[in-house]
């Protein structure tokens, strides 16, 4: 819930799926869109947020760190 992909904005370029250092995303072959499958392994580096050419990923820090 802390890494949100705006699927309407996403153009299926696969950049986030390709480059995530912690392999947090999986790829849905039917929808041709990424899915956040291993969110607990995210280290909140922001690479997916930075590299998404459509600005389609939003990251919020978890409440447990507030």
């Amino acid at each position, binding site marked *: 819930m*802390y890494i949100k992909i705006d699927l309407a904005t996403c153009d299926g370029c696969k950049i986030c799926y390709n*480059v995530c*250092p912690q392999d947090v995303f999986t790829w849905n072959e039917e929808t041709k869109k990424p899915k956040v*499958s291993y969110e607990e*392994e995210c*280290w909140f*580096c922001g690479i997916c947020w*930075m590299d998404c050419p459509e600005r389609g990923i939003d990251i919020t820090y978890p409440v447990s760190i507030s």
Partner: protein
Amino acid sequence: MTDDLTEIADEVIETDVLMIGGGVGGCCAVAKAKENGLDVTLIEKAHIDRSGSAGQGIDHYEGFFTRDGTTTIENVSNEDWRLGRYGVRYPNLNVKYRLYKCQFWVFEQLEKLGVPMRWDDGEPYWIPFPFVGWERRKTGLRVHWTNIKPILGRAVRRSGARILNRTMAIDLLTKDGKVVGATAVNIRTGEFIVIKAKATLIATGKLMRLYNPETPMPWKYKFRYHFCPASSAGDGYALVYRAGGDLVNMDINAWTFRIRDDLTCSYGSFSLNDGVPMKTYTWDGEEIINPNATRYKQLEDEGKTPIYFGFDHFSEDSHKRLEVAFADERMLSFKVAEDRGFNPKTHRYELQDLSPTGFYRVSGIYIDENFRVLRGNKPIEGLYAFGDGSAGGTSGVAGAATGGLLLAEDLPEILQDMDEPEIDISQVEEQKQIALAPLAVEEGVEPLELESAIRDICERYVGMFKSEGKLREGLRRLGSLKDWLGKLSAETPHHITGYLECRNLLDLAEVHIKACIERKETRGNYFRSDYPDIDPDMDGKFFSQRIENGKEIIELREPIPLKPEYLKDAEEEKAELQTADAAS
């Protein structure tokens, strides 16, 4: 048992050079080795375009002693002395000397790879040197390296190297005491890969994951380290240790404040890289000096905590420089600050108590100045290491890039007379079984749960203030955790990563605790509650650990001194400087 590797492995690769680790160091080594005409295979457990601790960017390159490239003996000695005050010695000063000596050559090589080394005005931006009240004896460059990894990734692709992303090394392959390659697994497809190589190079980053992240996360998000967790799992350390190589200074780990407000001012050093120190305050605004562990305890007892880093005293210009640093290294921090309404002009970053973090700079894989991994004082044929995971160089991108470029420059001559590697197929079978075992475990334990238990042992029974009873209890409990490795399950190949990392961390936690048991003294930032004094017999010495004939060896050793030719070179340089000073 078959003797045909293609019947066991999904892919068999024969190559001159196997590079394990595709961070800054690995990418530099690969590009240079390809330029020198070698066949090169790179395996990276993430993706080279954003892997490693510079994946999201970095704001500085710290590789120079002076701005004119001189490397006088005082500079190298001062660096060693400075660390000696904190209880550690570089195991081999020759590594450091060689790394710093060629920095202007490295500058040119990085520019050739497309890496921007200059500031907006086209000139190098030297980090101010030295700081008042900050004991640096060296300098470096401020750089705009948000995209250093995509740039190096492109250079590696253009070089024509064979690149295997999402591929993690399982173990090194050895034959008659030599390293002849490695096995690996694709952590998305589960494919098992054998790579035969004349030279195996390791640059897999630091070891941080024996302890919890600098940013404490009390619930399920347990990877908020300051550096990339994928390249902070100590993979290379474990590969070397299991292959019989030495690890050194594994009792001495770095330490830092836990950064409670994870907007990450990079331990406060962003502003230092522009020459402006932050200030440290108690909760009620009293300015203090950065406390060590003992002083932090006193502050707690006095009711003076929490403590904070502050930038609110900065000029407008310094605040703008700070923003640029965040853009260069931690761009997400802007979004996080905006979400919280955090303004570094008016707010302060809370710090928590000092805690152990990682093993790097002086700890890690024992190498010589040719980046050969050592067993005792002898190099292991076919095995090399550089970057954060190797002990004795500079940490950070400077050590990684320099080590990779220098080694790759030497490799053609090294490989010239090397025999074709021969593989022991029984090792391949064994390593395949190890790597793929969790795929067959049903209703097993998640790797992260086991890793949390390993970290908890190091936090609880080792930590900052150690003692014999705690260390021995920690070792005993760690032993019982090893039984759980076989109960880890991987629903998909993705979880094989966590499983292999746990396997590595179990070995490394044992190495760490055993080294701590041996150091029976307090020195610098190494605290033994039961041995509160310095042991003079330990002056200048360090522990090395390896496996030899199935037995664990731990030795107390003297550092390797500077070679006569380096000493002579440094003395001649010093004489030239003195002559130049006298003339001017």
